[in-house]
Structure formats: C-alpha cells, structure tokens
C-alpha cells in the first residue's frame, strides 16, 4: 500500500466568536492516494468547503485550525508560515473554485493568467511559458487557440472559463487539485463536458483530486472514493460504487433515498425529517441522532468514531463490532 499523498488527521477548525469558539470541523480524518479522485459530499453547512480551505491554507479569520495535522507527501503543511504556504499553493496544490467568473481577474487576458502562474512556479522563459500555456489550453479543449489566448475572461462562456480555470490549476503540475463545486454554476450539458475534462486531465497529469460538491450524481460519475460529511464530521467514507449503491450510515442512506432519479415518478421521495443542526447546537453523541430512524441509547450519549466495515468506514454505532469501546470493556469486566 503506497503512502498517501495527502493525509488529514483529526482536523479541527474553530471560529472565534463573541460567545466562545464555534467548532466547524470536529475531528476530520482521511487520506488521498496519489492520482486518486476523492469526492467530498455533503449538504450546506456540513463543512466540506471549509475542509478544502483548511488544507490549502485559505481559512478566513476568525476561522483557524485548532487541532490536527495535515500532511502532504509526508511533510506537514498545516503549520507553515504564510510565505512557505504560498509556495505550496499553486505548485503542489491547485485549486478550482465554484464561480469561474470571479476566479479569473477580469482585467487580465486569459493567456496572462496562465503565463503568470507558469512563470511563478517554474524556470521557463516567457516564450516557453506561452507555448506551454497554449498547449494546456489545447488540452482542456479550447478551440481557436492563437486568438483565444489573448481574450479576456468575459469574452468566454461559462464552460470555457471553467476550462481555463482547470488549465490554470494544472499549469504548475500540482500533485493535488482541490475542486470546490466546479460544476455547480454550469448548465447540465456543460457540466458533463467539464467533468470529462477534469477527469481526463488529472489522469493524464497524474494529479489527485479532492472533489467537493453537493451533487451526488457528479460524484458517482467522477470519484473513486467518497466521503460523506455531516455537521462538520465524516459520516461515511469508502469506494464510490459501494457507498452509492449500499450506504451504511443512516444519513447516507437517507440522502441517497431522497435524490430523485430519472427512473420514474414515485409516490413520494424518502425524506429525512428536520434539518442539519446549527453549529452552535450540535447534539451530544452522534450529530445525526435526533433525525436518525435507527438511533438507540448509545447514539445519544457517545459520539461514534469512524468504525471499519470491510474496507469502508462509517461513523455509526450500528457497525460497532470488536472495536472494544468502553461499554464493551465494562461488560467484559463484569462477567
């Protein structure tokens, strides 16, 4: 088993507010192997965007990393000085944001964006950088290159802009690309194209991808593994096929059942009662317990860690077998 490219252990992100610290991410742990596509899925408020921002070091104060470790290729990156982090950003980790219109500087030509980044992270001459930029734009499928490279972002359509953003993220040959809702602002037909481009390029350049989205369909099409987040914690993590077809965690089950498909007109969609708790009012024990149809006493008291089920993990007491928690030890001692 090769060493993971990115390793996140017990990451805890807090926001300092007037009323005390607010825990936004509460002990997140996962790995990304080199070249793998990990999907991070969850609803709004689950903390998936924050995870990406924490990794790349772009948390806005008063948010900060309160505990945990983030390691990239064996080297810790969560405690670096800003100057060091800047070197890593772009060169080793690329980022794709949701809205292509605001990701690109409207005053800079598209070519300039790329060339600037290439020059910053490599030792090519400007002429070589321009050639490389053209090659990259060709790879992402932008036609009529010689003309387009000198165009301004507003002259491109939404899908084209997002292709440029993908090219930009890859131009320094990063090992990891964090994509935060890359297709949410696009039309359905364009979404499909962009997903294809993203997959193709990351495979070709050997980059791993952390794909953050709320759209389960996109994950099903694109990712190798998926992490389902809920209220700042990971509920389930495993291979995408398994999680989508047979979710373990009751939240994941509810989520999959709530998604309408093209299959047919059902009588009702399965719905999960209530809504995700406020960050300031996360229930004791398992965060999902008030809404869980399968909750029992232990769920209301003790927070479940990620328990292994085969080669997947789910943070649910239903899957507690042989993990030796305190209760089991207590039972054993009493025998």
């Amino acid at each position, binding site marked *: 088993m090769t060493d993971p490219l990115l390793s996140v252990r017990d990451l805890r992100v807090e926001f300092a507010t007037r009323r005390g610290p607010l825990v936004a991410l509460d002990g997140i742990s996962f790995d990304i192997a080199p070249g793998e596509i990990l999907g991070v899925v969850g609803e709004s408020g689950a903390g998936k965007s924050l995870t990406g921002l924490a990794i790349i070091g772009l948390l806005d104060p008063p948010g900060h990393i309160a505990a945990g470790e983030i390691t990239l290729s064996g080297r810790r990156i969560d405690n670096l000085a800003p100057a060091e982090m800047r070197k890593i950003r772009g060169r080793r980790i690329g980022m794709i944001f949701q809205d292509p219109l605001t990701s690109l500087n409207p005053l800079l030509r598209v070519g300039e964006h790329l060339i600037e980044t290439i020059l910053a992270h490599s030792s090519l001459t400007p002429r070589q950088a321009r050639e490389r930029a053209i090659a990259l734009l060709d790879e992402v499928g932008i036609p009529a290159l010689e003309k387009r490279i000198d165009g301004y972002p507003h002259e491109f359509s*939404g899908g084209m802009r997002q292709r440029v953003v993908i090219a930009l993220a890859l131009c320094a040959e990063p090992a990891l690309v964090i994509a935060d809702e890359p297709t949410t602002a696009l039309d359905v037909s364009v979404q*499909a194209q962009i997903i294809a481009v993203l997959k193709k390029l990351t495979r070709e350049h050997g980059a791993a991808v952390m794909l953050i989205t709320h759209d389960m*369909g*996109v994950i*099903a099409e694109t990712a190798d593994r998926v992490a389902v987040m809920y209220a700042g914690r990971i509920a389930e993590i495993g291979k995408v096929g398994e999680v*989508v077809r047979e979710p373990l965690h009751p939240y994941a089950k509810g989520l999959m059942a709530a*998604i*309408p498909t093209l299959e047919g007109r059902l009588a009702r*969609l399965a719905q999960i009662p209530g*809504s995700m708790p406020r960050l300031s009012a996360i229930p004791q024990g398992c965060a999902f317990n008030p809404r869980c149809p399968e909750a029992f006493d232990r769920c209301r008291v003790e927070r479940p860690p990620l328990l292994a089920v085969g080669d997947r993990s789910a943070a649910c007491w239903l899957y507690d077998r042989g993990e030796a928690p305190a209760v089991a030890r207590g039972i054993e001692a009493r025998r």
Partner: protein
Amino acid sequence: MSAPAELVAVRDLKCVFDVSKPWISRLIDREPRRLLRAVDGVDFTIRRGETFGIVGESGSGKSTLARMVVGLLRPSAGQVLISGVDMAATRDPLARRDVRRRMQMIFQDPYASLNPRWRAGDIIAEPIFAFGRGAGGANGAGKALGKVKVQARVDELLRLVGLDRADGRKYPHEFSGGQRQRIAIARALASNPDFIVCDEPTSALDVSIQAQILNLMRDLQDQLGLTYLLITHNLAVVRHMATRVGVMYLGRLVEIAASEALFARPRHHYTRMLLDAVPDLAMSGRARTPVGGEAPNPIDPPPGCPFHPRCPRAAERCKHETPLLRDNVACHFPLDGPESQGRSGER
C-alpha cells in the same frame, strides 16, 4: 361557473428585449438594432390538476416565460389565457383582480422572495388583505375582514406547510432555506389560487430539504386540487413531479410529451442530449453520445434550427429552415421519424 378542463392556454407567446446601444451611438457606429428574443413563439396548454414541467438550460427563456404567464412581464406578442380570460387584454379591474387571485408564483431564491423586514405571518397575510377575502369567501371586494379571521387563516396555512403557529412572529432571517420556501408556499396558497407557477422552487435547496419540499408540493396538490407549472433545469425533479413536460431551447419549445414518453423515448436531439448529460447516479453504465458545444448567445442565434450547430443529425435543411412545432416536436429529422432509421444525409 363550470371549470373547464383547460386551465391555462399560452398562444404564440413572444418576448423580445431591445438591447441595442443608445440611438446616438448606433447612429455614429452605424450599428443595427440588437434584439434579444428571449421567448420566440411558445404554445402550450395546461389542464386542470396536472403538473406541466418546462425544462431548459440558461438562456432557454424559461424564467421569462414563467413571468409572462403569471403577468409580471408584458409579452411582446401572443396571449396568456387563464380560464379563458386574457388578463393583459382585460380592462375591467375586477376581472383582472379575479384572474390575479387565481394564480400565484413560488420563486427560486428563498432568501430573496421574502421581505426581510416583515414577519412571516404578515408576509402570508398580505395576499389575504390584498384580495379582501377570507378563506373561500364569496367575491366581495371591500368586505372588512376580522383580524381574528385572518390570523386563523394564517395559522391554518402555517400548519398546512408544516410550520408552527409561533413561527408567524419570526422574521425570515430566523428560518432556514427550506423553511423560507415553506413560508413562500404558504403565501402562495393564501389567496386560494387554482394555478401556481413554480420557478426553480428547489434549486437553491439541499437534496434532503428538496425532498421535503417536493413531497409537500405533491401533497398540497392532492389536497387542494392545484395545477402547477414547474420550471426547472433539473431533469430528475421534473421526472418526479410532472405529468407532461416541455423542453425549451433558445426561446422555443422543441418538444412536448407526457413525462413517461419523454424520458423513455425522446424525439428531439436536444432532449436526448440533455438526458445523456445528466450524471448517472444509478451508474448503470448506459451508453452516452458525446456532448458538444454550448448554448449560443440568444442575441445572435444561429439561422434555421437554433440547435443545428450542436446537433449530431444536422443537415443542410436545418441550417436554413427553422422547424415549427409539429406533432409536438420541432425537428426536421426527429429521433423516431422515418428518416432516422439508421441513415444520415439529406432527404
């Protein structure tokens, strides 16, 4: 008054925006007028009690269409008939008011569709006051309404959408997106409408909340006998909710069919392309035709069939002749027609 089966009829509806530069600049630069044909001749009918879905991507004109149907936007041409009455052509204020009462709208953005300075209860009560009637009262403009009666109706509506009485005292910012959408639905129901236009009602909501809201809408339709016009870009939502579906592209309806038929046997190439583009949650590994290009600029649509630059079946004829909606599909070579039996090339 008997209720005809056809509740809403839209005939040749058009909406053209003039996006030309100011006259002086045009004169100096010798530029022609530029017109944006947001909706370019749309015809359909909606029967009482059904849910008619309209799907399209950005630039298709579906939101503009929704606003014209409900009377917020004046059409450049064509008619919208609600129970046989054309509101734009009617002078009589009482008749207009009656038409207005019968239809309502639910908007996309739950954060912008409620006045942030008003309490939820007041927001819901406003249509009741505006139309001057209590629950199911007779047609009496100017009848004084007891505050108690109105409050009772507001409470009833809150309960109907799954909220609590006490929520009426709260301000919108105290609610989540899904709850705000429930308030918006309660407001839409306050005047006892027959027909509700829903413009992307769940696009801004999370999946699990979307399920709650869609279920609520279905339940209300069954309970109150409502008719819906559902505008969305989400094919799965329309599959779940609609009985008949129309597909829009660049201001035109390219196909209309019963929901079942549209999804199983699409006849227009754009419909097929849209269905193929939807990410495959079931991961059934179905075969997909590659997708190309993007929707062109509505100001400068391609000549002939607007879809021809992206259509795998495009022929010479498609570049010159705009296909009309015939037999519910607007295509010279529809997918189930005789020409499509494995041959390409012109007729």
